[in-house]
């Protein structure tokens, strides 16, 4: 939190012309600085007051930033575990740890990355921060519930991490029975942690749906909603409908362990395949909880950095919803070799292919967005282009493992590991990083270092492909996943080594991102109001960083999210900033008053 120190008072260090805020929209009441402890509170009392100002804040922006710190921390932890996993596989036989330790490490990598990082990654950070601003509202519909979901997330994460103290979980993130029933007791803590975190996910989803339905600003019709909101809307539907199922499943698993109710354990007459059905009924839709927000971020990036309307807006928007709904009907493709009925496998395979089509439509639309546009290769755009390339590979390999006969060979091998890393890391994490660079000025008021940004993109791209493309080949050659060692296939050693070296490059790339972020909040250039020339409300109608209340008046939306022509005459130069056009606001302009520093502010600024 300390790293997100507020920038120096911007109005005094930067000439107003260069900042180019609309009249009455200078960042006076920057959310990072206000509310803050009164000046006469000093020392520890000040630190405590400052802490309370954040921890008890119901401001969606502060909650978003707190989520960002938390998920970044867990991403780092999960990443270190991944490096350990890859290092262990460098040589045949034991390299740095024993089999039992390895099993715990890869399990924690999966659990942390899925439940603690990637599910809350984009919705809870950028979603919380931007959704109310993008719809033109002061906050989400239920701000206190929003804070509660942060607390629940932290409580759930703590319970989950408690499992380490009771021996660690070694089941893999899938908790397959009956193994999860027999192994150490830490499974209970982990299952309960995931159960608790589910409520955080449900509450956030509910909050977003209500906000989008009820709090859109005048003129913000469904067809003028930024695609990021469409994708968050679709994500929220999945979060609300699917998460209860994993909750019930994990409770049943806990009851099976504690009471021996005999639902999943074959020794008690239970059915382990039933567990898999329950588990994937949530966990496949969860894949869309992870990727749909990324689609939204990419739409924003492609539009803004091509300065072109996102091609096929309606198709991109509705395909998110189509994916969300169809996503509930494909869970069985995780179970082609599990012993479900062959007829089910056939039906699941067919629906799986159908869900590939809306994803394909999106990729084609994004690429075509650049057509006759004005493509600006800044770091966020580099990440967006990386997303397109990597997600395409992730998608076509999804067709490969969705094909019934081929999946028999590829199931539970490194091919699947590579496939979902291309989708989850090449997709969601690239979008997360791209979005983070894109909205970094909005969140912190500072610009990241462009050179470091591009270097990180390059390293991540090289490292990622080196790590995971090789795993496609290893997988189709027969390397099973979750292997501590490969004594039966020593000839794979050179490939494992290349993959491991790739993971180090990837790690260095992500370290550069971290350094860039930490450096920029202290030393970065002050960001202009609209550095990229975006046309959504977050860029055109709020200050950078936004004021505590987002808008001084409820904005009146008169154009679509990608109508860049309304910014005509703007430069979109990140150093100078796009002069934001005079905004039309709902309230009467004559109510502006002169505030202490001589600038004119809308009246709402005085009565905060």
């Amino acid at each position, binding site marked *: 939190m300390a790293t997100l120190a507020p920038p120096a008072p911007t109005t005094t260090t930067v000439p107003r012309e260069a900042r180019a805020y609309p009249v009455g929209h200078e960042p006076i009441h920057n959310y990072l600085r206000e509310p803050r402890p009164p000046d006469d509170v000093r020392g520890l009392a000040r630190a405590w007051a400052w802490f309370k100002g954040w921890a008890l804040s119901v401001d969606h922006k502060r909650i978003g930033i707190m989520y960002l710190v938390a998920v970044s921390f867990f991403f780092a932890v999960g990443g270190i575990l991944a490096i350990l996993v890859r290092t262990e596989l460098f040589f045949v036989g034991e390299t740095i740890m024993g089999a039992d330790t390895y*099993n715990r490490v890869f399990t924690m990598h999966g659990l942390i990355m899925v439940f603690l990082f990637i599910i809350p990654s984009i919705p809870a950070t950028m979603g919380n921060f931007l959704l109310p601003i993008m719809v033109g509202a002061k906050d989400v519909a239920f701000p206190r519930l929003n804070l509660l979901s942060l607390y629940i997330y932290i409580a759930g994460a703590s319970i989950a991490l408690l499992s380490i103290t009771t021996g660690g979980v070694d*089941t893999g993130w899938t908790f*397959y029975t*009956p*193994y999860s029933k*027999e*192994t150490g007791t830490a499974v209970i803590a982990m299952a309960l942690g995931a159960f608790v975190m589910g409520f955080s996910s449900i509450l956030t989803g509910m909050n977003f749906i209500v906000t989008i339905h009820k709090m859109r600003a005048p003129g913000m019709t469904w067809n003028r909603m930024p695609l990021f909101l469409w994708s968050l809307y679709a994500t929220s539907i999945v979060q609300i409908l699917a998460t209860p199922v994993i909750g019930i499943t994990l409770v049943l698993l806990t009851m099976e362990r504690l009471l021996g109710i005999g639902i999943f354990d*074959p*020794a008690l*007459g239970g059915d*382990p395949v039933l567990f898999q059905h329950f588990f994937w009924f949530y966990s496949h839709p969860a894949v869309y909880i992870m990727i749909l927000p990324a689609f939204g971020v990419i739409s924003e990036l492609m539009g803004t950095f*091509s*300065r*072109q309307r996102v*091609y096929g807006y309606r198709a991109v928007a509705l395909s998110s919803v189509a994916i969300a709904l169809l996503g509930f009907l494909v869970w069985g493709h995780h179970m082609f*070799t599990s*012993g479900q009925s*062959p007829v089910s*496998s056939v039906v699941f*395979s*067919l629906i799986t*292919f*159908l869900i*590939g*089509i809306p994803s394909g*439509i999106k990729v*084609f639309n994004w*690429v*075509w967005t650049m*057509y*006759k*546009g*004005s*493509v*600006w*290769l800044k770091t966020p755009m580099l990440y967006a*282009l990386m997303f397109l390339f990597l997600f*395409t*590979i992730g998608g076509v*390999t999804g067709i490969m493992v969705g*094909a*019934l*006969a081929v999946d*028999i*060979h590829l*199931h539970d091998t490194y091919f699947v590991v590579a496939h979902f890393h291309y989708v989850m890391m090449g997709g969601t994490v690239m979008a997360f990083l791209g979005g983070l660079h894109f909205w970094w000025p909005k969140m912190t008021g500072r610009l990241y270092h462009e050179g470091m940004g591009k270097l990180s993109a390059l390293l991540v791209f090289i490292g990622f492909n080196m790590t995971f493309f090789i795993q496609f*080949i290893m997988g189709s*050659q*027969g390397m*099973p*996943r*979750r*292997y*501590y*060692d*490969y004594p*039966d296939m020593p000839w794979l050693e050179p*490939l494992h080594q290349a993959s491991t070296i790739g993971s180090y490059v990837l790690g260095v790339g992500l370290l550069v991102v971290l350094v860039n972020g930490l450096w920029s909040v202290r030393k970065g250039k002050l960001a202009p109001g609209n550095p990229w020339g975006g046309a959504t409300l977050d860029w055109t109608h709020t200050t950078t960083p936004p004021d505590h209340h987002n808008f001084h008046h409820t904005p009146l939306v008169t154009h679509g999210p990608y109508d860049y022509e309304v910014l005509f*005459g703007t430069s979109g130069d990140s150093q*100078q900033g796009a002069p934001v056009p005079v905004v039309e606001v709902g309230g009467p302009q004559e109510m502006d008053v002169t505030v202490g520093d001589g600038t004119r502010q809308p009246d709402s600024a005085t009565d905060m």
Partner: protein
Amino acid sequence: MMQTDDTPVLEERTSFFIEDGSLWLPPQSSTTAHEIDGLFYFILYTSTLLTILVTAAMVYFVWKYRRKSHADRPVDVHESKWLELSWVVVPTLLVLVVFFWGFRAYVSTSIPPTDAITINVEGYKWAWNFEYQNGVQYPNEVYVPVGTPIRLEMTSQDVLHSFYVPEFRIKHDVIPNRYSYVWFEAPEEGTYQVLCTEYCGTSHSNMGAKIHVVSRNEYYERRLGPPDQALSLVEWGEQTYTRYSCNSCHSIDGADGVGPSWANVWGAPRPGSPQGEVNEEYVTASILYPQEYMVPGYENGNMPSYDGQLNEAQLAGVSAYIRELSGAATEADRTVLVLSDGQPAEGEAAAGEAAAGEAATPEGEAMTETDE
């Protein structure tokens, strides 16, 4: 029984690049592999083409429409119904082709021919046991005739496992309390690697087995049980220790493992167990009914039951081997006996009858001596 040492062992794969392999797939060694590979390559080439098209369009657009000045104005692009329709219809047709192809290949590769030979397979932590219809069992390896469809009827003793032979392109989960099957027909003799692909705990990655595809004659011999071997009880125990994967949990050098080490345990007190200490009865009971008593500190319940898998010579051999490791082996333990281990303890197969009888006597002696 004649000694069959001429097992045609296929050279172990030592390098990633081999003569009949490809970059992507291991050699095709079953009659159904080509159906899966055909679809694999169709998707691979189509997707490569698609990825290249998307990437090329991307790179071209990035270069062609790069921003030359901050005041760049894009041209207003109107959406083309036909363009959008084309990238809905073409991928839809493609995936439908892939679906039907995958479906057909799935059906034709998963239904075993009616004349297939059935072999039972049991997976447990962390080994595989193969059993012919005549009751003869092989741990971690099986001999099957070349050019004959084989159906493996599989179940698990403890947790989920998955039976995977990359070169045959077969895989199916092995589930406790339930039977699942895979089938294959290998057109060429050789040795093929079985892997477990469903995570099952500590030694998941060491749960390999071998399928030996051999001539029909050799198969008939192997089906009668392993050849006679002139071994002492200690040697029987040592062989059992590795063949039945005891070594994946129990060390012989005192190192800690999933189960207690065998080093220096002979005579160690086992308070609470019916036998009270590690002796012949204790070892036998631990192998056959492992859940009845567990050593404190090892109550993980991971030990599978070997009831019906080991014959008396092997059971006595394990005890003798443990005695040897504790320096308590007797002269009788080291005396070479002629025994056959292919014979199940009950002695069903006629061919093994004599060997079993042979085994009974010296074994009895060994027992008596230990009791003293």
